[in-house]
């Protein structure tokens, strides 16, 4: 009998508020060290926190976007542990009365749709950043550490999933969908590389068909969606090997090593887990009444799953709809292109095909333009009405991306417009036919293969700009 993985994911998302969670310091990334600080976020003696109301609203937006219930009353708590980059040596977080509970997120994989429960969404504050100085910047080999408190106090949401995930692939799909949802909701930039979105995994194995949970291992330090999947795959293998050998899985926190592709146990002490939570006496409860909740719920933007459904109704196939709905930039370019008259499937194919390739090849950003909905609509119209060949269209797209102008202008400039005007083509066709009377005879005799040769002659004579469809029609009618 095989083992079934049971996985839950904790995701931390920094919010894109102007100011920090409990003080007026800027919450943005990349300021010179220790400049975005004040008595509150430095934990100076005497300072007191005050909740950023916008952060509460953003947290509510995430919660509602993940189909959570919003608690009518929630409170902050102090989570006590010592760490040098955490100024107060307690983190203001939420514990037994979080803002949002009981949600879910539907996730698509090749195997279908999976509903992953969301246990809770709660508010807390980020810590500062320690840089370990010494051998290779590794924590264990460092001689000392340098601390920058700019990030201390940045609003952080913790999103805790139920242990509903059953494979590393599902976990990957879950965080991909979650990231897409957060981006669509517009409350975080969810940049993995800057750490504004981070996740930890909890994983245990159990015999297939069993209802009981196995021993849980927490895996940390995955800094990409890909490494989350790899770390979970590694843990599944490691735990399977242990169980098959009859050895116990130890409940512990393990550290993912990206280079080695392995996890290893972290030094842990019993008291490390005694956080001594208690209600934060410096803050008063957050009370969300019906009106406030309704106002936020009504203003929620469309979520990826909803967009995907709508795209499928517009005629897209499932995988393409998933790709476009998960990316807010793709989604908005797609919608704009369709609104400008573009054919949905054609535009979608362009987006997921040539545009994606271009984005990968160059440092093109969709959000910044110049490839926008209008240009894609125009491009797709030019292809479908025969003015551009498929291959010429790729050149035009590259030209648009390079900032040469809108598609028609680029095509003109690069001399890529197909000639499909009969009046313009007729003299050329006549010339070709006159020079190839034997080929015409073969065509009349029913040898259809020869038409390709004739079309080729016309294309050569027009420098490749003739519309092959129009040319074919002309030859047939003239050959009679």
């Amino acid at each position, binding site marked *: 009998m095989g083992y079934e993985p049971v996985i839950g994911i904790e995701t931390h998302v920094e919010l894109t508020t102007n100011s920090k969670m409990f003080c007026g310091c800027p919450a943005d990334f990349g300021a010179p060290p220790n400049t975005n600080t004040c008595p509150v976020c430095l934990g100076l003696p005497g300072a007191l926190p005050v909740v950023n109301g916008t952060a509460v609203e953003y947290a509510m937006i995430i919660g509602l976007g993940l189909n959570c219930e919003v608690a009518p009353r929630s409170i902050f708590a102090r989570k006590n542990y010592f760490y040098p980059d955490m100024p107060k*040596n307690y983190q203001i977080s939420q514990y037994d009365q979080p803002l949002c509970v009981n949600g879910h997120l539907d996730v698509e994989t090749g195997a279908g749709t999976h509903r992953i429960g969301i246990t809770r969404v709660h508010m807390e504050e980020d810590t500062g950043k320690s840089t370990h100085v010494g051998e290779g910047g590794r924590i264990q080999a460092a001689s000392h550490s340098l601390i920058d408190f700019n990030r201390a106090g940045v609003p952080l949401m913790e999103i805790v999933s139920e242990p509903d995930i059953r494979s590393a692939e599902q976990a990957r799909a879950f965080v991909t969908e979650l990231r897409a949802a957060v981006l669509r909701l517009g409350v975080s930039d969810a940049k993995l590389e800057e750490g504004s979105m981070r996740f930890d995994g909890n994983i245990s194995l159990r015999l297939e068909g069993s209802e009981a949970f196995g021993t849980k291992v927490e895996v940390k330090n995955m800094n990409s969606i890909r490494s989350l999947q790899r770390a979970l795959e590694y843990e599944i293998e490691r735990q399977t090997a242990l169980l098959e050998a009859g050895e116990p899985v130890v409940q512990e926190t393990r550290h993912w090593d990206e280079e080695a592709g392995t996890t290893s146990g972290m030094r842990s002490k019993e008291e490390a887990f005694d956080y001594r*939570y208690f209600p934060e006496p410096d803050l008063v409860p957050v009370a969300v009444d019906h009106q406030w909740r309704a106002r936020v719920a009504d203003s929620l933007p469309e979520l990826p799953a909803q967009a995907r459904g709508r795209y499928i109704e517009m005629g897209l196939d499932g995988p393409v709809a998933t790709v476009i709905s998960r990316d807010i930039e793709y989604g908005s370019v797609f919608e704009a292109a369709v609104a400008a008259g573009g054919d949905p499937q054609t535009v979608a194919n362009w987006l997921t095909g040539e545009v994606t390739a271009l984005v990968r090849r160059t440092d093109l950003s969709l959000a910044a333009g110049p490839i926008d909905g209008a240009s894609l609509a125009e491009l797709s119209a030019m292809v479908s009405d025969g003015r551009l060949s498929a291959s010429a269209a790729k050149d035009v797209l590259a030209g648009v991306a390079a900032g040469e102008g809108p598609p028609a202008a680029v095509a003109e400039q690069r001399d890529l417009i197909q000639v499909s005007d009969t009046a313009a083509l007729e003299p050329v066709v006549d010339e070709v036919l006159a020079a190839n009377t034997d080929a015409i005879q073969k065509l009349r005799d029913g040898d259809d293969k020869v038409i390709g040769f004739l079309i080729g002659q016309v294309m050569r004579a027009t420098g490749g700009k003739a519309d092959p469809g129009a040319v074919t029609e002309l030859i047939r009618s003239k050959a009679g």
Partner: protein
Amino acid sequence: MSDLADLTLAAAAGGLRSGDLSAVELLEAVHRRAAMTEANLHAYLTLDREGAARAAVGADAGFKRGADLGPLQGIPVALKDNMVTRGLETTCSSKILAGYLPPYDGTATTRLRAGGAVILGKTNLDEFAMGSSTENSAYGTSRNPWDPDRVPGGSSGGSAAAVAAGSAMVAFGSDTGGSIRQPAALCGIVGMKPTYGLVSRYGLIAFASSLDQIGPLARSVEDAVAALEVVGGYDPADSTSYPGAVPDYRSGLESGVSGLRIGVVTELNGAGIEPAVQAAVNRTLDQLENAGATIVQLSLPSVEYALSAYYLIAPAECSANLARFDGVRYGLRRLGENVEEMMSNTRAEGFGPEVTRRILLGTYALSAGYYDAFYGQAQRVRTLIIRDFQAAYEQADVLVSPTSPTTAFPIGARTDDPLSMYMSDVCTIPSNLSGDPAISVPVGLDDAGLPIGFQVMAPALGEPVMFRVAAEVERLAAFGVRAPLASSEVG
């Protein structure tokens, strides 16, 4: 009065406005007094002579321009050294903050500066406001101006001693379990803890956040009112600050107590109270009755549990509040092989025994498996105490008791027995748990010539009626005695 240092705030404020005296003269008189008394009293940790002189000159210039910034303009005030002052050493009487120069002013300090007050310096306290005698200060014990062999009370003992001795005209302290009222009682002055949330805690170095309140220590009820008017009122920097305007405290000061119901709390009178103290309180009650008040005897059964609840809640909150003193960003650092050792060495060395004890207590009370039995239960008891008070205020306008069960005790008498020290606060702690205002007014001396304080408690935001009764108690007691050390003959 011959010496300006002995003026009440009200008298000095009048003189400043009439031009009879200047803020500079007033400051000089107070500095002269401090020069005489400090060697004996050690009320101050830091005297900011230059800052005070600048403020006095500024206040006088303001008066000359006709600018009136309020009742504290030009008045020399002292701040307990747990109130953050920008660029002026703030230690909380702890080694762990030796030499600390805060980069900001707390809200109360900001309002005092804006109100033209002349900030004299920082007064001594029990380390991190934990104690009832100032014996827990890392920088030496302050002494009682009535008898230098005795404690001034605590934790705001330095503030109380300064006001009683004339080395400050008014002072601010903080009250977590009686830390303003008890030293005021022991030093024969008025000390007042406002309703929780009335004075911003922003810039008050936290001991127990849900109990701490800043309040005035003064030579009269009217002076306390004036001081509260300046620092009180809503502050958006403190989430637990009361929104809403500060009410008028003055209009009732002359109204007397006729028609008021005064409740004597059974649990806080009689048993455990020194006979001389109780006798003085009873005498005051008789006077109040003669003045037209109705005296009612009331029982608040859960108040018996207040001290126990307090010694769980306050240490628990303090264990988290004091976690930030870790040797990373400010204050003391002791070396260690790694950061954890550095923090542990710094904290072991930087905190004195009482603070260490409370951190340990609080850490234990919050730790896994004990939370509900200790901290959780203490908070439920707190609810019961609040309910008892609410019920009592249905039957009485104010409640009264002695402020402290005893008068000032000798230095060293209780240092070996934490519980007996904690008993000093048995009458004051309930108001901190309920969040209600309370004031101590001196009403007499015991046989040893030591002052006795009378406590008036009122419901939340009931300062107007509390001050009204306190003012009448003050008139009836006609205390009017000056501490023996508060005179130019002693030094």
